[in-house]
């Protein structure tokens, strides 16, 4: 379905708002087109676990009423924009399963703060998106409710754990989806699906109402098809917007150029065995593009990052064990919770048992203590580096999207996040920015832009400069009709 000469699926939040205000289409028409597209194509992708048409049309009608009454000052910056949510975020009246059979049938009674902020800004709630079970995975293959396919190649994974969110945006089902990232779960799938994915600074976005994987690492952020939409979404998620204003501080900042920006490169990241040539090329092309626009390049090192993955593999399962051990199933409507063994999948069992071991033995205590020391070192490493640079460029993940079943070794799967976990351990912000298609696979490749905590402005400026130089992400060709 198209509006004017532009296919609706390709429209971003800004274009949708403009069309709405110009009277090109109503919010209901936009929502209906979105729902129809999902109904027609998502069977082949599997990004949605639940679609919420009644909620969507009700919200759309509210926006249309304000437009009809010319109450523009009441419209938020996401007025009429379809948005979908990872299934670990509560939306009252819709299911929250975290991709686990344990929570099948559970209907949320409350709405997560991050979801509510998006709705308050006028967004249209389209539904809930597939994910790795309890966010334990990097391919969305561990979901109890079936796999999500990469819209660029349906035989390949979309990445994970927020694979449904990345796929829904790449397939043009929604312009904005929310995901969560404890070790790379927004950035890695964004890279594999060729869309923008941002992990905001730890603490910028409320996690209240989001089912936790690891509270000290989790952060909610957006998937989008352009940098401006990502900037808008971050400000909305952080509660930094005013009714009637179409722009936010960050969405205005992306127009600034990068002259004088100091860009860091991490040689040890680029020399990692297993980093594919095309992912390496993507980082180098990004560096060249920024340098051509006036940025200066420097080398920095983050020595602690070498063992960040080990620290993450210690701390993550400990938090997972604590979370599930504290899981009050009665709250989710599961009766006789104490007698019911949790029917969790293999990867969840592995991580929970590992966490239990690390939390209950002397040896585990030694590793936990070392992992926490690594975190302190990484915080210092980044602090030192950001004394000399404004942003750091790095790979997102070692390789482009892999085939279903191609990686079965959990340790190898963990390596998908080898370039992203240090950012979570430090609490910084980072994003995955599409860099076109890889020279080896023809699949999406990307670059990670890392900034200090609170450095979203610089990070998004760099991303927007790349977007201007390389071209923005597009809807995957299979779904661009």
């Amino acid at each position: 379905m198209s509006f004017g000469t532009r296919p609706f699926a390709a429209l971003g939040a800004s274009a949708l708002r403009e069309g709405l205000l110009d009277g090109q289409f109503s919010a209901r028409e936009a929502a209906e087109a979105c729902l129809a597209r999902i109904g027609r194509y998502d069977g082949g992708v599997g990004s949605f676990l639940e679609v919420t048409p009644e909620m969507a049309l009700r919200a759309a009608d509210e926006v249309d009423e304000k437009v009809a009454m010319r109450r523009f000052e009441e419209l938020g910056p996401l007025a009429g924009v379809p948005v979908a949510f990872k299934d670990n975020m509560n939306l009252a009246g819709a299911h929250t399963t975290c991709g686990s059979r344990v929570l099948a049938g559970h209907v949320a009674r409350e709405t997560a703060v991050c979801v509510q902020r998006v709705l308050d800004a006028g967004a249209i709630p389209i539904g809930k998106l597939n994910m790795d079970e309890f966010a334990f995975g990097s391919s969305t293959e561990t979901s109890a409710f079936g796999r999500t396919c990469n819209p660029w190649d349906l035989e390949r994974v979309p990445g994970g754990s927020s694979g449904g969110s990345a796929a829904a945006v790449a397939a043009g089902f929604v312009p904005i989806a929310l995901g969560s990232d404890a070790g790379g779960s927004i950035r890695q799938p964004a890279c594999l699906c060729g869309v923008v994915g941002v992990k905001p600074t730890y603490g910028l976005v409320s996690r209240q109402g989001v089912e936790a994987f690891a509270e000290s690492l989790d952060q909610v952020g957006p998937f989008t098809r352009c940098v401006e939409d990502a900037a808008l979404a971050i400000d909305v998620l952080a509660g930094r917007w005013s009714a009637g204003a179409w722009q936010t501080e960050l969405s205005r900042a992306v127009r600034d150029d990068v002259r004088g920006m100091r860009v860091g490169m991490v040689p040890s990241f680029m020399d990692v065995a297993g980093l594919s040539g095309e992912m390496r090329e993507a980082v180098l092309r990004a560096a060249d593009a920024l340098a051509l626009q006036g940025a200066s390049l420097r080398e920095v090192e983050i020595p602690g990052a070498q063992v960040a993955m080990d620290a993450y593999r210690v701390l993550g399962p400990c938090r997972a064990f604590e979370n599930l051990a504290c899981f009050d199933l009665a709250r989710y409507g599961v009766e006789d919770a104490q007698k019911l063994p949790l029917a969790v999948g293999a990867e969840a069992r592995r991580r929970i048992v590992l966490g239990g071991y690390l939390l209950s033995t002397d040896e585990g205590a030694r590793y936990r203590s070392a992992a926490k020391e690594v975190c302190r070192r990484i915080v210092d490493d980044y602090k030192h580096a950001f004394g000399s640079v404004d942003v750091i460029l790095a790979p997102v993940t070692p390789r482009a999207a892999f085939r279903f079943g191609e990686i079965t070794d959990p340790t190898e799967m963990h390596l998908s996040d080898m370039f992203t976990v240090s950012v979570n351990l430090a609490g910084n912000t980072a994003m995955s920015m599409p860099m076109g298609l890889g020279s080896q696979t023809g699949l999406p490749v990307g670059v990670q832009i890392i900034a200090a905590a609170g450095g979203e402005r610089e990070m998004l400026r760099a991303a927007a400069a790349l977007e201007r130089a390389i071209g923005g992400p597009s809807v995957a060709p299979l779904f661009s009709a």
Partner: protein
Amino acid sequence: MRAHITEHDVIEIARMARIRLFEGEAALLAEELEEIVGSFEGLLDLDGSVAVKEVDR
């Protein structure tokens, strides 16, 4: 030093976490976890310092 994780350890932890294991899974998990925990040795040997220098491109 390689960790020694027994099938009994795994069964106990699974019981605490109320996780259902399949028959024979505890032994397999014990073996797998020994390997994973063994791989954490690198955590105890962190060294290096931050270096920043200009790049001539």
